[in-house]
């Protein structure tokens, strides 16, 4: 996993609340047996017409969205299915961070496993970001801050262990495997 330290990028905004993982990656693309290549199907039903041509009115199809690595979304982004294909698709497309007032539990946990930083901010910050699509913002994970182009820095919470994993680019499996003796001890007493 690539370490996450500082990321500066313009934002793409999807303002609606409750965007579920079925929208992020529809179930028909879940028949894959690998993690790669899902980016082209990201938001497939919003991004393409039934015949497969890109919909000009969808934000990811606008030239301004190109190269943006931060997605700003409405409240409760990623609700619904536990499919990790959702963060795989977002990461494969090129996103490295998501900002919302609230992210769904399983989705948020899945993002952290894939080097995608889930950032929760307060309502006014979210409202500002939604009102300013394309704003150049900076996420500094060491400092735990989101800096807006106005110069205002907002701190965001992140669970300490997950933060360390992201900063170092390591995954949790190594840590769990190192707990082997404790796990064996638990199995003996359980």
């Amino acid at each position, binding site marked *: 996993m690539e370490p996450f330290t500082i990321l500066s990028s313009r934002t793409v905004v999807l*303002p*609606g*609340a*409750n965007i*579920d993982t*079925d*929208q992020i990656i*529809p*179930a*028909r693309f*879940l*028949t*894959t*047996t*690998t*993690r790669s290549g899902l980016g082209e199907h990201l938001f497939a*039903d919003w991004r393409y017409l*039934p015949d497969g041509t890109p919909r000009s009115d969808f934000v990811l199809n606008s030239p301004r969205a190109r190269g943006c690595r931060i997605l700003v979304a*409405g*409240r*409760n982004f990623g*609700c*619904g*299915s*536990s*499919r*990790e294909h959702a*963060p795989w698709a977002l990461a494969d497309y090129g996103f490295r961070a998501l900002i919302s007032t*609230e992210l*769904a*539990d*399983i989705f948020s*946990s*899945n993002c952290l*496993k*894939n080097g995608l930083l889930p950032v929760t901010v307060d309502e006014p910050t979210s409202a500002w970001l939604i009102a300013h699509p394309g704003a150049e913002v900076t996420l500094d994970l060491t400092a735990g801050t989101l800096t807006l182009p106005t110069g205002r820095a907002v701190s965001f919470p992140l*669970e*300490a*262990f997950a933060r360390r994993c992201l900063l170092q680019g390591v*995954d*949790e*499996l190594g*840590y*769990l*495997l190192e*707990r*082997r003796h*404790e*796990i064996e*001890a*638990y*199995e003996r007493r*359980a």
Partner: protein
Amino acid sequence: MARAPQTLFDKVWRAHEVSGESADAPAVLYIDLHLIHEVTSPQAFAVLRERGLTVRRPERTLATMDHSTPTLTAQVFGGTPIALDAARRQVRELEVNCAEFGVELLGLTHGQRGIVHIIGPELGLTQPGKTIVCGDSHTSTHGAVGALAFGIGTTEVGHVLATQCLLQRKPRTLAVNVSGELRAGVTAKDLILTIIGRLGVSGGTGHVIEYRGDTIRALDMDERMTVCNMSIEAGARAGMIGPDETTYRYLEGRPRSPRGAAWERALEAWRALPTDALARFDREVELDAAAVEPMITYGTNPGMVIPIGGTIPQRCGDAAFTQALTYMGLAPGQPIRDQPVNVVFLGSCTNARLSDLRSAAGLLRGRRIAPGLRMLVVPGSQQVKREAEAEGLDRVFLEAGAEWRESGCSMCLGMNGDVVGRGEYSVSTSNRNFEGRQGSGARTLLASPLTAAACAVRGRVTDPRELM
């Protein structure tokens, strides 16, 4: 010193802490039962291979196939190959992975196969006090017996395969207290839809719900599973119900329930699990069951739900709400009753147990579905299918004009060949009415099996009490 009063959740959590959480690190939580299926496991097995790891406790792992599998008898039992190439590869890959890593698989033609959340309880593997995970958000279903059960992503599936453990922060607790008697024609599905409507689709985020109160105590196990199943639709990863005599009666004698002296020991342990009288929850919500109506969704998330006699609400200035109604082809102020319906789906881990099929068949007996309407009945497991056939329920559905299929997730999610067409209205007993969930452009109205059957007869959204 007297032990502080604990909730059911607290007790199960503490009993499974390999190590507790600290400011620096989450708890290491031991997992008793890991259920896997063909869609969210291939990439996890790939990680085991890449790192040269084995499955730590194969005997605590059970695999089945349900999501991408076909429900047409010829495709399940040979005769014709699985129509979808990618699904065929996925099924094959699970067979290979289970053989290589020594995991028991209830494969495509196995008599105990079914939707993963239906077969766990049915086999008696789902037991009070266990921690149960699966790469599927409706794992919350298993909480109905008093287990702590929640959905995980594929990376975590790999963690559990390799270590039998997960890193978890302890969630908060939310008590949903329900009292009073559900009225005739009102089911557990209507109750949970009402609860989701009240909490909202993110109202349970960060929490484990415990459903409590005399209404919950009066539900049978199938109904309790319907309630716990949809906890995730309120944002809660898990829903639990304290085990009681109903639970023990349900589990006794099932193929993988403890037997003899082991059963007696298990019972003694299970009886200590229910929430202590003075235990505190982080939040509590009260609900009057007598006021619950048959419910139906009108929008694109399960929180967009109204009584079946109600009208679609208005929310000025809410763009997502407007987009949802545009997608649904419905308008604010419009009654949902009499909305024409193209498809009725009776199935899914929410409502495909035997009592669900009985409930719908009771209304359909001697009636026919409306001309031009398509009704798909998909039992939740092969065992449910056999039991339903032994009672003649298959005849009732077939004579009414419905299709009777092999078990699987089917039309709950459009990835196995069973789909609702673009623009069509589907009254579905499943759990999600998200855009495109049942197929691109499909419009889903979630309801109970009883309501679904009534809608099938009339070809329009119908209050089941009119036909009872």
